């Protein structure tokens, strides 16, 4: 803007602060910013700040000074002096009417602070400067505190407040902006801290009205600042003083502590509490021993501020303020937690802890009525962990004391935690009012989960007696038929049991307690209670799921029948609800873990299963879980004839259901009916999973059983496998609409027997699986067929699984792979290149083959003719999932870890003797340069292995590649000097980790970008 009219500018500023039209704001901002940054910026600022009729213009004037300062490259010392002098004049002028002008004054103060940060070499004492201009002192302000206080004493409340604001602004700005570390030393040497201290010394005597809050805010700013200063410089603020002074409490802390007075306004007390909490949490070194002890006494002493203020807050019902105070209590205690733990048996600590226990036990529903117990929970857990983690400290503590003393200490400690546990047990009772519960549901369940974590910690501390107490409570609650208490206790016991049963050695000690619960009639009490008691049922089902170790043991096997009765009754009663889903999960877990003990249940389960297969309304997940449960138990009969019949009967039932439900084609099926049909197919997947041998074959079968099993399934007298295939075929070539979903399930069925070391109902011959794959791929590619191309990835993934599980098998030969790839890959090369998902699945298969058994493909002539070109094209992809597998392919080809000497020679010849190496490096570099930042990780390892594996060829390949790229002139031009430097650096790195940095720097340079991160994790 070459010329401007001040009236138009004023008008624009007024519009800027009043309009709601974003377009207008944008356009005004744009033109005003141009003006601010122009050579007239300073002149504009001067005019605007003097526009007394408009505060908006005055503020904009102050803001314009900031822009001028920020856009000036390097001001001379005279310019800086003049700049701050101008700011000072305006501050003094506006200070006469402080309140309405405060926001403008703050901006001007911020300008001076910015001048200090930018030009600290010259302007190093901003507070001194302000004090001098405010007091009108002709001489330099003395460094002596007493003289400063004397000078400050002459100032009005308004000027004092400006000084306090300025002190805050300086340190806040230093925290916000990236400043050199020496600025922290200047804060001390330039008297910024000293004058602030003098102000607080003055305020400590008699606080002028209205300065309490800004004084406390100022301390808050300094707390954050001191932490940064101590973190990044040699400056220290022990006891909130500069080093060398050694008083009981610094003047700043004395000012703070003065506000712990119940007669003051609650807002001010609250602010003081927040500041004290900040000090302890951010930089506790600001408090020396005396100050800490003093603070502790004021908070926890009998009839001291803390206890009196709590009473006031509880009486008045001030929840927020109470939470703030409790946070301070916890911060103080946390800071000294080891001492607290060591002295739990002393009167002083007992008094402190009893205060906190009382606060934890504040009446009301957690989340809804009170938040204190949630706040204290973390502290109690931390305290318990001190006893667990620092056990040695306590051993040393009692090494010179009598056994009785130690016992007394432990029993005091235990009784404290038992009391706390009782409080929390009460707190986690589900609120009786469903309206309240539903409104706080997720927060309340979160709270419950936190409480259960605390109980797990307490179990680690109090061990078996604690568990015993929990079970005793449950037995009493069962006897008293107290369902609400029972739910809470059972929930905690379930969580504790679930945690400790991870280790078998720990769970064995719990058997007798679990038995006591079952003997006391838990199951019959639950069975006889109403289904409306959702939480009790849900918790009981979880509990049953956590005690599988008990059912597995001979002590608990007897309870299985009653457990199943209960679980199936709930499941059948509520076949679509969440409780039944939950139940089916527990049944599945029990059946899988205790299958050996459940063989006698098979006939009963069969009847239920048939019902479930026929019931279309049943949740699909439940049906599938039940099939898995039943087959898992069936697998344990260990007599293949019987197992064969079990599997056959299930398949016949499924086949009948399919025939009965499935019309000629799936295409005409409604979506919900398709879900049922797909679930029947999923049931076969579950049968496949459950038919796997659960552990080592030698452990599961005797040699005779192994022999019988092998010959039985080779013969397959019941034609189980052909029945499975017939079902697969009925689905597989039926509808394009549902084809990928169906193919996924069919492939899962065929995968389920892979890797099994002994024949079984789902262990299909390799040629049969491959025949299906070839037929299906052909069908997927054929136009107007019932199969969809989106099914191809599942079929490729099936072959990948075969390679992963059978790479050592003689059956999987290179001839077989060649013929397979000819049918499913070479013949459809172009089609497979047309879609990123298809590219990904093909390259993923090749990478897996190279990883597991490279000889399957590397000697095949089509490897260099079709697979390598396909993988080179993969480098052109932008999709991360394609790049990831492509990078894996090339990495595996370069390293060829599982390759024999012949494989290594073939690949080396291919890379070096043919143009493959050169073409690959060209494609790799091109792809790397054009890659996005998020994809760079895919390239590093490939480059590094290339350098270490082909050190002599690498330089030639890369140099030629850059020359070719130069000729193509695509995208940004890379200078020859740049690429040469890059190549040299890469070669010097010898493929070590440092190559990553070289690559990243080159990528940034080539794309004209910068590094965003300051460090890597």
């Amino acid at each position, binding site marked *: 803007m070459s010329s401007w009219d001040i009236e138009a500018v004023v008008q624009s500023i007024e519009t800027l602060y009043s309009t709601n039209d974003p377009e207008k704001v944008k356009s005004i901002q744009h033109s005003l910013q141009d003006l601010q940054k122009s050579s007239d910026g300073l002149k504009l600022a001067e005019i605007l700040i003097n526009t007394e009729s408009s505060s908006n213009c005055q503020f904009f004037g102050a803001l314009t000074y900031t822009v001028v300062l920020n856009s000036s490259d390097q001001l001379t010392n005279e310019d800086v002096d003049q700049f701050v002098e101008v700011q000072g004049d305006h501050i003094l002028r506006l200070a006469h009417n402080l309140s309405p002008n405060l926001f403008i004054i703050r901006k001007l103060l911020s300008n001076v602070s910015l001048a200090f940060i930018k030009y600290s070499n010259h302007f190093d004492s901003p507070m001194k400067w302000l004090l001098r201009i405010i007091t009108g002192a002709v001489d330099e302000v003395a460094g002596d505190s007493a003289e400063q206080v004397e000078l400050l004493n002459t100032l009005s409340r308004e000027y004092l407040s400006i000084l306090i604001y300025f002190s805050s602004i300086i340190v806040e700005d230093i*925290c916000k902006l*990236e*400043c*050199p*570390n020496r600025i922290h030393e200047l804060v001390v040497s330039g008297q910024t801290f000293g004058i602030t201290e003098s102000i607080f010394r003055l305020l400590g005597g008699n606080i002028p009205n209205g300065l309490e809050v800004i004084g406390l805010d100022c301390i808050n700013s300094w707390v*954050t600042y001191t*932490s*940064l200063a101590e*973190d*990044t410089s040699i400056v220290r603020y022990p006891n909130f003083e500069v080093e060398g002074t050694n008083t009981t409490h610094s003047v700043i802390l004395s000012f703070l502590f003065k506000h712990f007075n119940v007669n003051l306004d609650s807002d001010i007390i609250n602010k003081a509490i927040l500041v004290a909490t*900040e000090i302890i*949490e*951010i930089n506790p070194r600001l408090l020396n021993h005396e100050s800490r002890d003093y603070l502790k006494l004021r908070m926890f002493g009998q009839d001291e501020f803390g206890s009196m203020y709590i009473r006031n807050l509880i009486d008045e019902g001030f929840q927020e303020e109470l939470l703030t105070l409790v946070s301070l209590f916890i911060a103080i205690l946390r800071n000294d937690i080891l001492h607290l733990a060591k002295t739990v048996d002393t009167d002083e600590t007992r008094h402190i802890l009893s205060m906190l226990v009382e606060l934890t036990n504040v009446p009301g529903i957690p989340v809804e009525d009170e938040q204190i117990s949630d706040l204290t929970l973390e502290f109690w857990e931390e305290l318990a962990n001190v006893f667990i983690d620092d056990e040695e400290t306590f051993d040393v503590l009692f090494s010179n004391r009598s056994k009785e003393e130690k016992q007394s200490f432990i029993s005091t400690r235990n009784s404290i935690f038992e009391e706390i546990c009782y409080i929390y047990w009460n707190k986690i009772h589900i609120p009786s009012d469903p309206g309240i519960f539903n409104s706080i549901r*997720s*927060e309340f*369940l*979160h709270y*419950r*989960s936190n409480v259960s*974590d605390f109980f797990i910690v307490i179990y680690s501390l109090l061990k078996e007696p604690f568990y015993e107490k929990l079970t005793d409570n449950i037995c009493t609650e069962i006897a008293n038929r107290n369902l609400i208490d029972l739910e809470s206790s059972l929930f905690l016991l379930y969580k504790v049991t679930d945690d400790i049963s*991870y280790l078998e050695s720990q769970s064995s000690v719990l058997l007798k307690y679990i038995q006591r619960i079952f003997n006391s009639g838990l199951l019959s009490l639950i069975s006889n209670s109403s289904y409306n008691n959702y*939480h009790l049922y*849900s918790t009981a089902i*979880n509990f049953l799921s956590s005690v599988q170790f008990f059912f597995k043991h001979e002590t608990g096997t007897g309870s299985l029948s009653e457990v199943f009765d209960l679980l199936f009754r709930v499941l059948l009663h509520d076949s679509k609800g*969440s409780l039944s889903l*939950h139940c089916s*999960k527990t049944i599945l877990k029990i059946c899988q873990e205790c299958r050996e003990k459940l063989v006698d249940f098979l006939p009963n389960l069969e009847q239920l299963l048939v019902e479930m297969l026929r019931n279309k309304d049943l949740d699909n997940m439940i049906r599938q879980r039940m099939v898995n449960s039943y087959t898992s138990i069936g697998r344990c009969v260990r007599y293949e004839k019987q197992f064969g019949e079990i599997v056959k009967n299930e398949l016949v039932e499924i086949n009948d259901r399919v025939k009965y439900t499935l019309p000629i084609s799936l295409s005409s099926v409604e979506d919900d009916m398709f879900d049922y049909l797909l679930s029947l197919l999923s049931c076969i997947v579950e049968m496949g999973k459950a038919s796997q041998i659960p552990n080592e074959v030698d452990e599961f079968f005797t040699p005779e059983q192994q022999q019988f099993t092998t010959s039985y399934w080779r013969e397959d007298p019941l034609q189980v496998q052909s029945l499975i295939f017939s079902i697969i075929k009925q689905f597989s070539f039926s509808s394009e609409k549902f084809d990928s979903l169906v193919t996924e399930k069919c492939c899962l069925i065929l995968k389920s027997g892979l890797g099994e070391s002994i024949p079984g109902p789902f262990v299909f011959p390799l040629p049969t699986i491959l025949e299906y794959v070839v037929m299906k791929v052909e069908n997927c590619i054929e136009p107007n067929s019932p199969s969809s191309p989106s099914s191809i990835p599942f079929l490729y993934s099936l072959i990948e699984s075969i390679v992963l599980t059978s790479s050592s098998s003689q059956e999987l030969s290179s001839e077989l792979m060649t013929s397979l790839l000819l049918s499913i890959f070479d013949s459809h090369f172009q089609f497979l290149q047309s879609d990123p998902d298809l590219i990904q699945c093909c390259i993923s298969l090749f990478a897996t083959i190279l990883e597991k058994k490279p000889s399957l493909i590397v000697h095949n002539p089509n490897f260099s003719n079709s697979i390598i070109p396909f993988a080179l094209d993969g480098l052109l992809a932008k999709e991360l999932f394609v790049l990831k597998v492509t990078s894996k392919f090339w990495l595996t080809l370069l390293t060829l870890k599982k390759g024999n000497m012949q494989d290594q020679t073939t690949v080396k010849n291919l890379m070096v003797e043919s143009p493959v190496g050169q073409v690959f490096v060209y494609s790799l570099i091109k792809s790397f340069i054009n890659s*996005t*930042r*998020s994809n760079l990780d895919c390239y590093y390892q490939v480059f590094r292995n290339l350098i270490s594996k082909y050190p002599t060829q690498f330089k030639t390949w890369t140099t030629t590649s850059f020359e070719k790229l130069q000729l193509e002139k695509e995208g940004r031009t890379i200078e020859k000097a740049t690429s040469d430097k890059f190549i040299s650096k890469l070669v010097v790195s010898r493929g070590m980790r440092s190559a990553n940095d070289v690559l990243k720097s080159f990528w940034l340079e080539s*794309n*004209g*970008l*910068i590094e*965003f*991160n*300051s*460090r890597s*994790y």
Partner: protein
Amino acid sequence: MSAPAYYELYRRSTIGTTLADALDTLISDEKIQPQLAMRILHNFDRIVSELLKSEAGIAKSKLTFKGDLHTYRFCDDVWTFIIKNVLIKLTDVSTNDSNDNEINVDKFKIVACNSRKAGDL
């Protein structure tokens, strides 16, 4: 220079890398200056850190795990743990009745930093 105010850990998340890609595009198209991109990423660091704090009350999922501690180190204020044969339990009270989902993984790496870092407050 002073230390960055917030951890840059979350830049490696999908949302973080995607943001960085988008910023790269804007810089390349000369729509923004690199300095602005840095400011945006600093904001991202701050906002993610703040929202993931328990006080924010947004993250209600809880993850607990058990396994064999294979490696642990504490370097430059960063804890690193590598755990093997891990059973991970995911509790999300916002979606179900505190029924846990379990996942078994062979290897689990945890990088943890102190949430009470100076500039983070």
